[in-house]
């Protein structure tokens, strides 16, 4: 049974989310402020964090950053603000996905399921991109022999691109392959392609010398992304 930490300052909302998650078969626990959240995170070691961005005390973005310093635990933001800036800030702070309020519980559950999916591929390949080696079985990325700290999602993104260098993936394809989403073209809760953009940017900042002039994860204008080794 997966453990989920719900960080939401609105007590009613917190209680309801916990109830919804428990009804869906998860072990959920709610905390109301940022400082307790970090303590609970350390003691509980959850499999996933649901994080409200607008928190009193320690702000949601700070919590995401602090968690990311030590853990790759999936983080899903809950946000009432859906303007580009708010979303991008949250994703840059380390969140893997976001669910805009007001949400339907099935959508929330679907997103959680996708994030808790086992990202480990059964294969035992080792891909290389120039100085970067990606050991799929060992779930490990090294650049010039030095091990890089990637979140599971960043790892999956790099693995997907590096498996077929030069092949261009559209953002929608990556949402399906990496994030594990299934959606219709006009789904009201269609995941946002900004997820891909921000994650690519995060990945670049970890593996590239200069994230603004990438050599390994390349943008194909108007289409999507591909891996390169030059």
């Amino acid at each position, binding site marked *: 049974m997966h453990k989920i930490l719900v960080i939401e300052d609105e007590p009613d909302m917190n209680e309801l*989310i916990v109830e919804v998650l428990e009804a869906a078969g998860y072990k959920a626990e709610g905390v109301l402020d940022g400082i307790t959240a970090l303590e609970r995170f350390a003691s509980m070691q959850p499999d996933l964090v649901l994080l409200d961005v607008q928190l009193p005390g320690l702000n949601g973005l700070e919590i995401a950053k602090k968690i990311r310093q030590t853990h790759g635990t999936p983080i899903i933001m809950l946000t009432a603000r859906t303007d580009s800036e708010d979303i991008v800030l949250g994703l840059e702070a380390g969140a893997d996905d976001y669910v805009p309020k007001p949400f339907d519980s099935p959508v929330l559950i679907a997103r959680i399921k996708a994030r808790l999916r086992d990202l480990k591929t059964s294969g035992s390949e080792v891909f290389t991109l120039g100085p970067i080696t990606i050991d799929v079985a060992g779930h490990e990325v090294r650049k010039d022999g030095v091990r890089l700290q990637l979140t599971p999602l960043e790892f999956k993104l790099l693995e997907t691109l590096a498996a077929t260098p030069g092949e261009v993936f559209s953002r929608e394809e990556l949402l399906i392959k990496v994030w594990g989403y299934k959606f219709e073209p006009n789904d009201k809760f269609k995941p946002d392609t900004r997820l891909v953009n921000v994650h690519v940017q995060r990945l670049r900042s970890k593996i590239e010398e200069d994230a603004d002039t990438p050599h390994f994860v390349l943008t194909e204008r108007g289409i999507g992304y591909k891996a390169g080794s030059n």
Partner: protein
Amino acid sequence: MRKFLRWLYAFFRRSLQARWVAATVILSTFALVSVGGFLSYSIGSGLFETRQQQILAEAHRAVVEVQNTFTASASADTETLQGLMNTVIPNLESKSSSSSRSVALLRSPGQSTGQYLQSPVSLGLDASLIPDSLRNAVRSHISKLVYKSVSLPIGANTHPGLIVGAHMEIPVAGAYELYLVYDLGSAQETLDFVQRTLFFGGMALILLIGAVSFYVTSRIVSPMRKAAEISAQLAAGDLEPRMEVSGDDVIAALGSSFNTMADSMKAKIEELSKLSQMQQVFVSDVSHELRTPLTTIKLSAELLQARVEELSPAAVRNLEKLTSQISRFESLLADLLEISRFDALSVVGDFELEDLNGVVGLSLAHIQPLADSKGSSLEVIIPNGPVQAEFDPRRIERVLRNLLSNAIEHGEGNPIRIEVGQNATAVAVTVTDFGVGMTPAQVARVFDRFWRADPARKRTTGGTGLGLSIAQADTNLHNGWLQLVSSPTKGTTFRMTLPRKQNILFTQSPLPLGRSRS
């Protein structure tokens, strides 16, 4: 030439200063020409009159003297007489530079006396210059001096001249006529000189007047021009520029009151834009703040729904109402937020080359259940093949859904007709209903927020009252048109026209906006 004239006309239309300078120069030229003409005329006539009187007095003296000489020699013979003539007459000649005088002594024709003496005539004088009219006058006014102005050929030029004639009785020889021919060339020269001086002086004066009026008008026009430039900048939205104010005159007053006006305008505009920004932020904040409680309500309703079998039938009905109102609340919030984004100008289209038919199909599929519930059939007329254009498919589908649900809501269960069209520069969709229709006054307000044609009419299709406002904003974002025609009891046609590409200007929609029932 015509081009030049047109340019000149445009130049004068454009430049106040040019008109002022031209008017000043033209008017002062008129004044100078009249004054100069008058001066030149009166100097000329004065000059000639004085000279003429001098000449007449001189001639009179000469004539009397000559007559006396001849009378005194009454007893002389022909030879003496001829000698006398040959000395006396040439003595009358003068060749001074100021006035030259030639002489001719001519025998009056038609005399019976046979005596014939040779007539002395000054060298270089053509006796035929003396007109017959003058000679006749001399003969008929025996005791008087007779004169006439003539022009004298001198070399290649002609000089004005005066011929004075007098009758002369010469003993033995009979009647003679003495003609004194005066060359007035020097007087003419004086006059020419005066006229030349007047002309060049006048020209210089006109140039000077032109320059002075240019200077004076530029002193007045340049602040006006500056004011025009600055007000154009203000009108273009740059609220910073101000006029320079120096001195204490009317121009300075213009400058300082202009600046005061600009200051108060700037203050007002800034205040208004601050207010409007505050309002946008407020609407956006309210919409966001409502989301968390709405989510709580929604989750509660969902949890209740999960245990629906434990509820009493009355509670189930209440839960249904709650659920439907929650979803209405949700769309209202979403629409409000969208409107506030448009108001804040923070909307950016996500343009892609797409097939309009596909988007029409999606929106029809989406709206079909609503149409079925109202009993309206959807008649679709689309061209064969794709209708490619560059647009934001999510927004255009939303526009179409709004138009369709609007048509269904007001269509009274009659069929709804959807037509797609294209031409070289634009693509279009019309949505026509044959329902209640609207009066022109209602049509004018149809895009107003939360406006309803008939407030008593119940909203049945769950519209938020913002749909058409958003549809219009979305169409504007595409540089397109959203237009309608409507007549009461007949129905309404909405037409959305979009450019094929975002940088294309189109002038004609591929579909007519007229209404006809097929």
